[in-house]
């Protein structure tokens, strides 16, 4: 039963789209209702399944998926001519990422209920995007994984180009082409993986049991790692994200920064590092050098920007840099911190972009120098933004602090010189993060209120609900991080096992 529910996570959004095809676009209200209901149902399913995974933790998982502790494991033949199968399953990490996605999709649908343009197509695209992201976080077959991974960038392009604002054509193209560039690197290495491993299928678990030749790993790992890192905006491939986010409509920004950018980091961990641990051990200590830009310079760039979405984009770049710091440390704590940061940053940036979108809908500008005193007119949205900011600067009580401190402690366990330097710099740069967040909040929310904003209204019930739910998630992880770390530790253990035993034979 649970396995059927699990598979329905990605099928339901697709079915919703198909159902809505029959309804004419003029019945926008009915379409909206269907989409909200579908997103809510998926959210409920995912929450229930996360609870199931948590409750089951410690009990033996599906033996077919060993060494990974996967639940709801499904293995059905699919494209038999390529030996590609439909293989899905989830352990703690996948399940939490799915939960994150479900929350963000639900929030994204709710915030864009009165988007301008053809709503039927917009919501269909959101659901397709959701399908692809769910698919990425569920699939354990490399072909299936890659199909979902690709589908996502295309939906993103259509939504930015058709429903975006500002330089939407440029932003959308920049985003999609850069992501496609990353995908091409991934695709090349995926073929290599399949042939070099000599596996009989594209099953990730099966490939992980083979030993890949070292000379292959040495070129394939950096290619694949950077390919995934493109979508997590690792320097020097971060340039798509500020332009892409600023051009995208609110829901797309939320999804892009909240869940899509995590797909890259997830791929780095689940595919690149898991399958090629020997090369990872050699390459990753050098990858750390790239993080100096993400973690240390990113916040400084955010200080100089005036556009809310650019500020948030650079803040995402710096927070995602921390994920890579945790990954590159290759210690259990570092990996757990990286996974925590994926989830925490998803909620945090979702909240950020949601409030920014709501404020933008009212002020029609995202330039913080033109705003001021908005807190008086929109206390609820203002408080939501400030809370997102506090979570972003790593205030204890919110999930950001847990994730960041775990990463710092974990990264410090790694004894390599470069990692130490970058870790120290990363710890010291928490001040810079505080600077841009407070500067933004102060300029926008505090101070005297300009005349033109006298008539602004606070959030409506729907918007308040989104803010409350996202804040509650941030607080829940931040106040009781024990259960989530336990869940993540179980999923990270096999990956770490593989990395720590690498290079010994």
């Amino acid at each position: 039963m649970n396995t059927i529910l699990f598979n329905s996570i990605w099928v339901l959004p697709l079915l919703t789209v198909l159902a809505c095809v029959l309804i004419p676009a003029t019945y926008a209200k009915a379409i909206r209702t269907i989409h909200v209901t579908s997103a809510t149902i998926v959210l409920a399913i995912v929450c229930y399944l996360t609870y199931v995974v948590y409750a089951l933790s410690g009990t033996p998982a599906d033996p077919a998926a060993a060494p990974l502790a996967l639940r709801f494991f499904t293995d059905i033949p699919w494209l038999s001519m390529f030996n590609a199968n439909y293989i899905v399953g989830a352990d703690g990490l996948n399940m939490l990422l799915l939960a994150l996605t479900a929350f963000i999709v639900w929030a994204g649908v709710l915030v864009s209920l009165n988007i301008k343009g053809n709503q039927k197509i917009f919501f269909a695209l959101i659901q397709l995007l959701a399908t692809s992201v769910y698919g990425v976080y569920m699939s354990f077959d490399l072909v299936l994984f890659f199909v979902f991974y690709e589908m996502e960038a295309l939906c993103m392009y259509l939504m930015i180009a058709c429903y975006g604002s500002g330089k939407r054509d440029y932003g959308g193209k920049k985003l999609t082409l850069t992501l496609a560039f990353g995908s091409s690197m991934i695709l090349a290495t995926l073929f290599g993986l399949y042939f070099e491993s000599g596996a009989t299928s594209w099953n990730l678990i099966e490939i992980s049991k083979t030993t890949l030749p070292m000379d292959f790993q040495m070129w394939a790992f950096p290619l694949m790692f950077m390919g995934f890192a493109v979508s997590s905006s690792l320097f020097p491939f971060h340039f798509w994200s500020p332009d892409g986010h600023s051009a995208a409509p609110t829901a797309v920004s939320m999804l892009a920064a909240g869940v899509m950018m995590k797909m890259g980091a997830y791929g780095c961990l689940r595919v690149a590092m898991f399958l090629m641990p020997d090369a990872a051990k050699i390459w990753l200590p050098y990858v750390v050098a790239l993080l100096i830009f993400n973690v240390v310079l990113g916040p400084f760039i955010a200080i100089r920007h005036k556009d809310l979405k650019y500020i948030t984009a650079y803040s995402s770049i710096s927070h995602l840099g921390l994920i890579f710091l945790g990954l590159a440390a290759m210690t259990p704590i570092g990996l757990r911190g990286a996974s925590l940061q994926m989830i925490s940053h998803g909620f945090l940036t979702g909240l950020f972009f949601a409030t920014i979108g709501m404020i933008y809908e009212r002020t029609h500008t995202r330039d913080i120098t033109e705003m001021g005193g908005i807190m008086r007119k929109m206390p609820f949205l203002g408080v939501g933004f400030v809370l997102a900011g506090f979570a972003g600067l790593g205030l204890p009580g919110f999930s950001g602090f847990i994730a960041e401190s775990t990463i710092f402690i974990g990264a410090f366990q790694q004894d390599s010189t470069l990692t130490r330097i970058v870790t120290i710099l990363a710890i010291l740069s928490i001040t810079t993060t505080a600077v841009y967040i407070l500067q933004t909040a102060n300029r926008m929310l505090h101070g005297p209120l300009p005349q033109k904003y006298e008539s602004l209204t606070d959030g409506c019930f729907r918007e308040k609900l989104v803010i409350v739910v996202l804040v509650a998630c941030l607080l829940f992880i931040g106040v009781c991080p024990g259960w989530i770390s336990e869940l993540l530790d179980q999923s990270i253990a096999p990956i770490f096992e593989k990395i720590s035993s690498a290079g010994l034979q």
Partner: protein
Amino acid sequence: MIDDITLGYLILLFPLITFVVNGLFLGNKCAKAAAIFAVICNGLAFAAAGTLAFHYFSSDFAPQKAILFDHTFIPFIGDLVARIGMLVDPLSVMMLVVVTFISFMVNIYSIGYMREDRAAGRFFALLSLFSFSMLGLVVATNLFQMFIFWELVGVSSYLLIGFWYHKPSAVSASKQAFILTRFADSFFLLGIVLVSYVVGNFDFSTLNSLSLIDFQKQFINLGLVTIPKSEALVLGSILIFTGGWGKSAMFPMHIWLPNAMEGPTPVSSIIHSATMVVAGVYLVARLFPFFAICDNALTLIMWVGAFTMVFAAVIACTQKDIKRILAYSTLSQLGYMMFALGACKIGQVVAVTGWTASTFHIFTHAFFKCSLFLIAGSLIHQVGTNDLDAMGGLGKKMKLTYACTLISILAISGIPPFSGFFSKDEIILAAFQGQHYVVFGLALFTSGLTTFYMFRLFFLAFHGAPRHEGVKAGHVHEDFAMTLPIAILAIPALASGFAAQPIFEKFFVPGQMNIPQLVRLDHAEWLPFVAVGIAVVALVIAWVLYASPWAKVGRALDETNRSGIYKVIYHKFYFDEMYYAVVRQFIFGGIARVARAFNDYVIEGLLAFTVWFVHKLGDLVRFAQAGYLPFYLGTLIVGVLLWRFFGQLPL
């Protein structure tokens, strides 16, 4: 009877519940209910803390440590587990009482002070968050918990200082306070990460019983250098102290504290006496045995404290804003506390006098400083400005306030039998016994300055002819809700010195240490006479200058027609301006601009070049595909010929 564990939970829960209830439910609608709820809950928290203190100090168990509860927050690796617990020892129990008492008083006072503010509900919520964070910090059992609440203290102070967010000055002051302390905290966090890595534990009990000898043989790679772990611990101790350095606003990170005056006065009162700034001193006191084994850490602490003490006292002598005078006096008093901790080290041994004196001074200082700020608030409420220009002659109208001010000022000046005398005397004694004669001289000098500037404030505000129209016309009254806490606080300001001294001398020792210690040194009998003598001389000078029949008050309040040195001091040695210059030019105009330029020109430039390159490649191919028939034919012929002569085409 309620057992101690429940009491422990209650102490923390009452302020937390107040925050949640007021913040979510009462805040917006009924400010009055929020105020009453806050006062009741904080009163109950104080009652719980008082009961706990009574249980603790009256039991035979007293100077030992106990952990009332301890929950795993997040496990890391091995023994490296972050816990949320409640540590009970003389120091934390004393702080619990002080924090809950001060917060109770400030809440009562705020009923009067915030009566006309429409956001009073939010104010009471944040005030309780503030005391909750401080209480959590005080009872911390480990560094991680300390850091969690340390940051919460920081953020609640940010929210409270910027409470009137429509005032640009308040907003920028709050930002400055948060960012400066955050800057210090980043080093604190680095220190925690470093020390916990070396030691493998966050617990204070482990850190305080370390011995550096165990770590001399192992080495640690810090990126640019590889040093023995023992030295890494010394570095870590200094980094941890940096957190306290910023939080306690020691020179040169002091500038946020005087600017934090922009917040509502009850906030200043609670920041200066109990919640925020003493956290730094508390951190050093809590980890004292750890700092004591780390060679130079205590010496650094002593000099930082001593310098701040003199520096701030000198500035306080020239200021006109009464809250600013009090703020600089807090800085100076924090300097006393800090240097007393540092002065404990005598060569390779440690004398605990300074530690006892410092904690004692935290205790007495809280009462008289809180009271002084509340008084300042009530004066400001009457005349509508912070400036001494507009005061004068208030003593006749506000008799009770006048008396309470006198008590607090005598206490801070160190005149017996008021509370400050006992603690300050012990601090100066600690410097003398530690053979730090320069610091000892500075401390005596500063104690004279303290008396001088406090009486300057006192005479200029309460004596002489009224300089404010409202006061002249008699529109001055004492608000009951505001005067009650002032009157209550006068009692401990007067009596907490001699009443609590036996308790401090009996119970307050910094715990087991791994280095030889001199438990008690001889008391220098002549010292109190010298200190009091200096204070009396300073008092007389202040009287001659500002209150005697031949004083020139107009001249005293004129800062324009002055010598160069006076102007430099009046402008606080231009530190604010230097700070802004550094931030604007170096951080915003320098690093940030370069970073953005690097991104916008170098990275985007490379991207543009790549795009251009791809386009050019496309152009080349496009030329070949233009549908121009002779070109196709030509290439066909050339190709066939080339194939014929260089390839294997059989023609």
